[in-house]
């Protein structure tokens, strides 16, 4: 077995060897089965039909045996089908498109920053440097309350933003799917930083007059990965409740969380977080299989909260002046890398083809027994997935993951372009990225998508979807009017 080290992979011959190896290992069952089948067929041909009939008559079948056998077969089949988890289908989803009047160009953001923080020019310069390197574009949007000089967000403004975003997304989803409010059995709303009473899920129930026996949940405080947590919760509930629809709403309300102080570590979210939201319809109904876009294959959740450093890495606190903001620690990227490794270790065996798993196993054994100096083998996830949706948390996150997973520019294009057009919309960014891939006409039947999200805690959550039917572009959605302009080249530093 050739030891494939990264340095040699540029050689063409080795590439073919690698391909041959992958084919062999991934289809090993076929390779084993073919000679057996061939042997059986040859044997049958050799024996001839009379011999076959003689062998048949020599097996003494009596009624009891036949009955027992058939019952056993039926019993095993029933147990198998009953214990199989229900398939969860993603019928459709809708992303919120903010109005053009909420647009915040870089120069406006910097001007406001200078006017509001006129006593801290260093903080303003810091914000400017962040914005220049952020990877955001000139069309990202902030809610109206943040456009004022100075911003004075009230609870009423926050509720207004929540209503605008959530209701628009749900309306769009209902139009696309023909869903009626009374059909919704499960409702999950996740919004990390705004948690009023009554909850946002109650707000949705009130607006759409949902049923009184609805199972509603409101997840708050769970950070940017809460979208996948909601999907996981919906999936578990759909195992318990047959024939149901689950509506998941993922959003982040920016209005109440604008940091008004001047601590540098806490100014970062102001520069990156933008308005956005998504509504997703999941179902376990069999008849949705024909029109559903995706089928949920796996959800893997990894929580590194047991480690103190990971726990404190994204921390909401008051600054010395008493203003509340979110403090991002300097080792955020390191912790994210660790959380990702953890997640990959769990998800790898579930999704990777046998060839990659074997290689990983061999290098692991080799490192443990022969030589610890061998480089750990990073499995090639590009063989397991056609599309990647990496949470657009910031340019650094996408760069880090691209490097760690050895992805090409095209794989991370959806994430980078979503960051450019919409900014960091927190838990809903994965849906904007998925929508980008669809809008580009790249989503074909059978394609596998990997959504990865990071969040405070520190969590790394993944969801794996399989495309159920080819999705045709052009389509309605937030990318409708600008998809032709993308992809754009995003410079390292934008000169302001």
């Amino acid at each position, binding site marked *: 077995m050739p030891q494939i080290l990264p340095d040699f992979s540029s050689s063409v011959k080795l590439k073919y060897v690698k391909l041959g190896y992958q084919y062999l290992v991934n289809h090993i069952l076929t390779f084993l089965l073919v000679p057996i089948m061939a042997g059986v067929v040859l044997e049958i041909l050799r024996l001839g039909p009379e011999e076959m009939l003689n062998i048949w008559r020599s097996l003494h079948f009596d009624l009891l045996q036949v009955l027992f056998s058939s019952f056993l077969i039926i019993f095993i089949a029933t147990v198998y089908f009953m214990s199989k988890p229900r398939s969860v289908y993603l019928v459709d989803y809708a992303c919120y498109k903010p109005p053009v009047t909420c647009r915040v*160009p870089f120069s406006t953001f910097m*001007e406001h920053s200078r006017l509001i923080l006129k006593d801290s020019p260093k903080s303003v310069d810091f914000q400017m440097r962040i914005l220049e390197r952020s990877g955001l574009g000139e069309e990202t949007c902030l809610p109206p309350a943040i456009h004022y000089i100075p911003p004075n967000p009230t609870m009423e403004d926050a509720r207004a933003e929540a209503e605008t975003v959530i209701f628009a997304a749900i309306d769009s989803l209902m139009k696309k799917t023909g869903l009626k409010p009374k059909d919704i059995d499960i409702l999950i709303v996740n919004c990390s930083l705004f948690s009023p009473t009554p909850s946002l899920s109650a707000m949705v129930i009130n607006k759409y007059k949902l049923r009184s026996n609805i199972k509603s949940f409101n997840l708050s405080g769970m950070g940017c990965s809460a979208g996948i947590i909601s999907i996981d919760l919906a999936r578990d509930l759909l195992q318990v409740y047959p024939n149901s629809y689950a509506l998941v709403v993922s959003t982040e309300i920016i209005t109440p969380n604008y940091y008004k102080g001047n601590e540098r570590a806490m100014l970062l979210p102001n520069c990156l977080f933008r308005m956005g939201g998504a509504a997703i319809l999941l179902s376990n109904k069999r008849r949705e299989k024909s029109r559903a876009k995706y089928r949920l294959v796996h959800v893997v959740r990894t929580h590194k909260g047991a480690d103190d450093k990971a726990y404190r890495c994204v921390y909401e606190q008051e600054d010395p002046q008493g203003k509340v903001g979110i403090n991002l620690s300097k080792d955020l990227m390191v912790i994210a890398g660790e959380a990702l490794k953890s997640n990959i270790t769990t998800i790898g065996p579930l999704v990777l083809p046998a060839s990659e798993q074997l290689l990983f196993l061999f290098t692991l054994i080799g490192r443990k027994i022969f030589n610890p100096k061998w480089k750990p083998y990073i499995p090639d996830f590009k063989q397991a997935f056609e599309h990647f949706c990496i949470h657009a948390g910031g340019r650094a996150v996408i760069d880090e993951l691209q490097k760690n997973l050895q992805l090409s520019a095209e794989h991370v294009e959806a994430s980078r372009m979503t960051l450019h057009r919409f900014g960091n919309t927190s838990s809903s960014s994965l849906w904007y990225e998925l929508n980008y891939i669809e809008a580009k006409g790249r989503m074909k039947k059978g394609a596998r998508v990997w959504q990865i999200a990071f969040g405070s805690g520190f969590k790394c959550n993944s969801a794996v979807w399989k495309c159920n039917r080819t999705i045709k572009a052009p389509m309605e959605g937030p990318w409708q009017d600008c998809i032709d302009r993308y992809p754009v080249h995003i410079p390292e530093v934008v000169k302001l």
Partner: protein
Amino acid sequence: MAEVSWICKRTVVSTKPVEAGKFCPLSVLDRIMEHNHVRVVLYYRCPKERKAGESIRMLRESLAELLSAYPIVTGRLLKTAEGHWMIKCNDAGVRMVEARAKGSVDKWLQNFDREKELNLVHWEPMFHKLYFWSTFYVQLTEFEEGGLAIGLSCGHLLSDPICVTIFIKAWADMTLNGKMVTPPLFHRLPRRRQCNETTNPQPFPELINYYKSTLEKPVPVVQAKQTTIKIAFGDEMVRSCIAMSHAPGSPDEPSPTPFQALAGLFWVGISKIKGLKNGLITMSICLDMRKVLGLDKGFFGNCMVYNQVPGDGIEEYELSKAANAIREVVDTMDAEGIMNLIEWMEGKADQFSCLMNGYDLICVNLEHVDSYSAIFEDNFKPIHASYYIEPTVGEGMILVLPSPLAKGSFSRVVMITLPEDEAINLLEDKLIQQFSPTILMMADKKHTTANSDP
């Protein structure tokens, strides 16, 4: 001033992003107006069923649409390599202030003065970090009992009052119909053709000499407190003023235009008030040169030129002689002369640190400005329009504006800014009283009470 209360201040940006790296140069006529700013207020009535804040929201959205066509308005000032001002189109937006006022718009118009009116149009003087200073300010004030006031102010560096009106009209078209009738054009001022060898090297040196002498003066200091009054002259009265201004011994000469007649009238009146005995006070007129230079209607920028009208030699406050002198100067301001002036100014490498209208009595011709066709909603024309060119630190300023009545009518509205006591005395002048003007806006109440005779 509890009558007008602020709701909020924000920035309105265009709906389409501006391409990076776009710059708009400013012409010499722009740069010479660096220390001035323009303020315009338009008043409207509103439909009765309108909810509070709805008009403002509608206007804000249409303004955002409009700004996509005006990258120069949303840009910021920057100095070129030569040290001149230019605009970097960095997509920063314009400031908007939203306010609320007590009462209704009609009640307001019965009892307002300069100070109150200036509360309806927000302005921020240039601060030293000019890159973050918005050049345009919009204020939308909703009257609690019905009505809307739209106030727009901008640095004179970018546009003169006529250009501001064209911008407002474009905004109104965008709100009403979703598109502009006259899209803006951004180009340089026309140049003299090089092939003319036979022309005089410097015809009409008076214009250039006037600019030369003004540029050499230091920036004046603000003196006595000034106030503004606004009076309206009916069609009949303007016609009789024109008749009176027509020189009796020269029937072949064309009769004065309403501007020339009214300018002459106020020139005489103000000279009398100021107590000048030998001839009239030095006056400068400011005229729009767009038609003269053959510019397209959508031209964006400054195109108003000042020229001095000599007043000595006009004895006995003779109206016809005054109007004649004005007419003569107007006639000399033709395309050749203006282009010579522009060429001469471009030749001057220094910066323009003077105040163009800070010394003499200035009379500005805005009679053809199109403010009353800025209709934002069907059937709601502006009921009133006010213009200010600030700061007023010279002898005084007269703006001749159109009236809200039908086009083609000779009726006019005149806004006069003078030191307070002179303004009050002017209203009582017999010559002006002869034309029975209607007083639309009085001098500031607070100060008149102190000065009035018991």
